């Protein structure tokens, strides 16, 4: 499953190289070095891919799709759901 779930930035490291994001309740660190300095701020929604922030996501679009993902995730069993969230940014379906 490749959902591309939008992640909300909850912390940005002082040196702007890393941030912590929250993806539907699951938190992890992500690399910010692909983004310009000061481009990503706490509260922004971003797209992750294999540990990197790829780009920012429009907030309205992000909130709408999170609702969608919630519905899709509810159709999965618990293990599948947890795995889907944790591995979403490493999903090979998006292509390398």
């Amino acid at each position, binding site marked *: 499953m*490749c*959902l*591309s779930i*939008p992640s909300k930035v909850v912390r940005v490291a002082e040196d702007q190289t890393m941030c912590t994001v929250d993806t539907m309740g699951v938190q992890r660190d992500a*690399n910010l*070095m*692909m*983004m*310009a300095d000061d*481009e990503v701020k706490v509260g922004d929604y971003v*797209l992750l*891919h*294999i*540990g*990197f922030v*790829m*780009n920012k*996501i*429009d907030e309205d*679009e*992000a909130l*709408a*799709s999170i*609702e*969608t993902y919630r*519905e*899709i995730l509810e*159709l999965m069993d618990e293990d599948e759901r947890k795995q889907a969230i944790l591995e979403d940014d*490493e*999903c*090979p*379906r*998006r*292509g*390398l």
Partner: protein
Amino acid sequence: MPLELKNLYDNFRDGETIKAYAKMIAEDAAKLDRTINIMEVCGGHTHTIMKFGLPQLMPKNINFIHGPGCPVCIMPKERVDHAYVLAMQEDVILVTLGDMIKVPGSNGSLQDARSKGADVRFVYSPMECLKIAEENPDKKVIFFAIGFETTTPMTAVLIDQTIKQNVPNLFFHINHVTVPEVMQELIDSRDEHVDSYNNKIDAFLGPSHVSVISGSRIYEPFPVDYKRPVVVSGFEPVDVMQGISMIVKQFVENRCELEIQYTRVVTEEGNLNAQALIEKYFEKVDLFKWRGLGNVPRSGLKLRDEYAHLDAEVIYKDVLPIAEIEDHKLCICGDILRGMAKPPECTIFGTACKPTSPLGSCMVSSEGACAAYYKYGNLL
């Protein structure tokens, strides 16, 4: 109330939405007097299409053609052999992404090299190479970099950090390839063997994550110069269905345009900072050989000459093999990657060639079309 795309998007309900799109596509396709062949360029789309049984939801005159968008599948044996030889060097740790370690080369796969004692590692993120290099100061760590526009900037970031942190033992073997050039090649090829098939590509479903980085603008020539519509789409089944619907509508309305389905992350310009990083460290090669497709002009990247001291292809040029290698005679990966054949048309599909014992790269890679057909075979 009429069925509008925007309404469907706002009221996104997975199964119901997919069914609604299927109905809309069928209604629109009924207005066409011919078959529309839609090539999904990316292996990720192929898997979504197969996993969710989308071909079964299509009317008879809408046909999916699977394209070359799997960086593992298109890696020619010559490059796999490079990785193998590098891995077998005594003081080398070879690091790569994805299913690359399973792809068979002339002497075997990287997995085989590992079983012979080579230190081959798989990482999720290229940045893990920095840690591996730091922990192994007496080794040379070589990152065998693969991928399309999506992963190229990550390699660029890693190179950037290697230089800034003055890491002395991290090197790169670059195999990054570019999507528009191979799409052009598929349309442009006019040799006797493929001509009739090339004409069958009527439209492209563009991979969204490529465009998150490079912007949708990389596809601009296709509707204009090649008269093929392109819709840049996400990877969920609803995204793909909406993308297909947008393509079919273009044909019904006699339009030929570049459109973005995946508006929540794809913009026309993409990630400009990432593009600048790529430009800083890489330049186009004249030719890059694609497995099954042969040499495609300007479809690959290399490190710029000023970074040759980091380039494993330069440093190890005396030990890297240069001979051309033929593909397995029975494997039709080339035809599949060109969209000329579907996996079940291959005589060894599911028999001599399975995910557990793959003969061709379309079966090796989890992104490959053969792997998708095999895994979701009950949907054939």
